[in-house]
């Protein structure tokens, strides 16, 4: 009996497997449609219509041609959006995408490259690691198979330069974040009669006016666990671009000028003018140091407002209280220029897609990701700005994002967040710590000397 049951079970299993594996056949079905029409004359007219209806697409689904392994930091909503952006590619070519997400990308990528098992593509959150990997020879020069003329038309030269190392192009930029934004509550501004400042002097004047009115102008929050201090580095970088210009900025990033250089010191001092002024920041300097960066903009939306302005990157909208309307309850103005000759540069971040294994499938995915389509799909969902010129500004879901995207595309100067590009011991170490010490009251020269000492060590190859 037992034997019979086991034989039957096996037969059933085989039967199920065979049925499941049967290929689907396209069908064309004739359907009869009955149309009943009542007209003035009490005569019922019934019409029989023959309509060929396709139940399954006649186009044969392409045979699966393997998958491209992609390593990145995205998860949750971001990953869902990316997968949606890649879906049309899989539909058309049959090449799937196997995405692996990890927040500790640097560690995982280093390990896999060392082990000789790198992913086909990787999405780096900043170009810093790209230089290291290109130097090792781990990356594929994509100019060998990409349509360079099209790329040159789609992306401004600075994007192509930032993705190149020693003259070779190693990746394309996909998702851009604009960091040079000052957020404010338009309703609060209107109620108090404040104007949006367009220059640094106007910004300082507004700050002083708000203090004179007995209110607090700025909300700054530097606490961020192991990364505390990073919002202050964004402030200093924005100021550096506007007071010293892009060439000096680049020198600063590469440690061609020391941290004790007057240009660097000047940027810190301007930051300190706001951050170290007890009446200018919500909660005083203790508040600045103790408040988490995500919690810090909330007082802008209290009544009466706890503060009026908050300088932060575009992603901060995800931390605003629920139920606020973009454009009405919150809006932004570009971080104003300081020295008119340097204009209004954009400080930002972007994800860079690089290739490790030169396979035909990986090539096709890379070409697809450089085209406007996947950029448009994610742009429409929000929280995404595309550097591709062919992406029309209309795909963005709201005016606010459109304004940000316009700022990025039209920027004459675009630079990456310096702390992302510097070696970790400085960019994720002494720079962060230095800002906390400075806001905490330490003497600026001492702070800069300490950072310089660690930089000398860190930049050694």
């Amino acid at each position, binding site marked *: 009996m037992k034997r019979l049951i086991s034989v039957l079970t096996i037969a059933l299993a085989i039967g199920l497997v065979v049925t499941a594996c049967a290929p689907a056949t396209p069908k064309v079905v004739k359907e009869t449609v009955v149309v009943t029409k009542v007209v003035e004359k009490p005569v019922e007219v019934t019409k029989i219509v023959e309509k060929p209806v396709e139940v399954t697409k006649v186009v044969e689904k392409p045979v699966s041609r393997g998958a491209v392994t992609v390593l990145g930091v995205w998860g949750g909503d971001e990953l869902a959006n990316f997968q949606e952006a890649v879906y049309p590619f899989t539909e058309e070519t049959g090449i799937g995408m196997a995405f692996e997400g990890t927040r500790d990308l640097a*560690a995982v990528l280093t390990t896999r490259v060392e082990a000789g098992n790198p992913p086909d593509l990787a999405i780096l959150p900043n170009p810093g690691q790209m230089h290291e990997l290109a130097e090792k020879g781990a990356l594929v020069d994509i100019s060998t198979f990409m349509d360079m003329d099209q790329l040159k038309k789609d992306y401004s030269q600075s994007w192509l330069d930032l993705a190149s190392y020693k003259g070779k192009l190693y990746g394309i930029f996909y998702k851009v974040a604009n960091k040079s934004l000052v957020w404010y509550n338009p309703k609060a501004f209107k109620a108090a009669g404040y104007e949006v400042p367009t220059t640094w002097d106007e910004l300082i004047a507004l700050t002083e006016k708000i203090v004179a009115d007995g209110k607090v102008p700025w909300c700054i929050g530097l606490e961020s*666990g*192991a990364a*505390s*201090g990073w919002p202050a580095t964004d402030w200093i970088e924005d100021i550096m671009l506007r007071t010293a210009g892009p060439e000096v900025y680049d020198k600063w990033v590469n440690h061609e000028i020391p941290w004790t250089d007057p240009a660097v010191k000047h940027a810190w001092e301007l930051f300190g003018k706001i951050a170290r002024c007890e009446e200018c920041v*919500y*909660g*005083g300097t*203790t*508040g600045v*140091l*103790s*408040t988490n960066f995500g919690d810090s903009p909330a*007082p802008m939306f209290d009544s009466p407002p*706890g503060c009026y302005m908050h300088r932060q990157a575009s992603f901060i909208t995800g931390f605003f209280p629920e139920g606020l309307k973009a454009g009405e309850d919150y809006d932004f103005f570009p971080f104003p220029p300081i020295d008119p000759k340097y204009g209004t540069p954009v400080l930002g971040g972007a994800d860079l897609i690089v290739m490790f294994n030169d396979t035909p499938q990986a090539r096709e995915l890379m070409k697809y990701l450089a085209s406007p389509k996947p950029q448009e799909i994610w742009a429409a969902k929000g929280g995404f700005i595309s550097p591709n010129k062919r992406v029309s500004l209309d795909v963005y879901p709201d005016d606010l994002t459109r304004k940000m995207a316009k700022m990025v595309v039209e920027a004459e100067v675009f630079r990456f967040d310096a702390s992302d590009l510097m*070696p*970790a*011991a400085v960019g*994720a*170490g002494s720079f962060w*710590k230095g800002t*906390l010490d400075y806001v*905490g009251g330490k003497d600026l020269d001492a702070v800069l000397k*300490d950072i310089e000492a660690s930089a000398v060590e*860190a930049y050694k190859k």
Partner: protein
Amino acid sequence: MQKKGVLPWLYIGPTLLILAFFLVYPTLGTLYLSFLDKHSKNFVGLRNYIWTLTSKDMLIAFRNNLLWLVLFTAFTVSLGLVLAVILDRVHYESVAKSIIFLPMAISFVSAGVIWKFMYAYRPANAPQIGLLNAIWTGLLNAKPIGWLVNRTTNNFALIAAGVWIWTGFCMVILSAAYKGIPRELIEAARVDGANEWQVFWRIILPLMKPTIAVVTTTMVINVLKVFDIVYVMTNGNYDTEVIANRMYKEMFHFHNFGRASSIAVILLLAIIPVMLVNIRRFQEQEAMR
């Protein structure tokens, strides 16, 4: 008669092998890496050690570890002792002991997060969400303090969180030792006219000395390695850096393998004498049985 021969080796052989692979080999490997540079390519001699022993950041870390060593050990052991003796006399002893031991059951990272909220700071006119500042501003009508960012208070704030976690552990062990003291001795002392204070200092404490010594050395070894609390609450900022946190940063954030290894070796050298004392005490206790 002790049977010599191969048999004892067969029994402990597998364990020795595992120990050798997971403990001895990595230790030797770390020692080796500490003499190389940050990418582990070139030999740099004692450069990493010189940095570890002289750099400003590391000196602050050493100072803090010393502070932790003295205060943390003193408070956990003495509080544990007092609680062990006092709770023995009340009928709700087991409930009280469970509550005090409870913090040991949660991860130290969770404890760090809890205490971070306890110390939370909000500006003077905003409602305080941190318990300490709520008491400070509500009852004492003072301005709120940033306990974790203020350099005068932050180390003590962190140590307080650590004491909260570990007191239960000391209390439980000392309580077991306390209950091991024969009641007749204490009764006899009381009959002879000793007051409670004298009973405690002259009879209970000397009899518990071996256990107190073991608990103290265990706490010392523990505190030299303190990491989670500091990492979660301040990440070593505002002069709260400790050795283990610095080692973690050098290794995983700055990718400087040479320095991280040298810090690890120095930490090991600091702990070895304490371990030897612990082992010797343990052997003495075993010999007494």
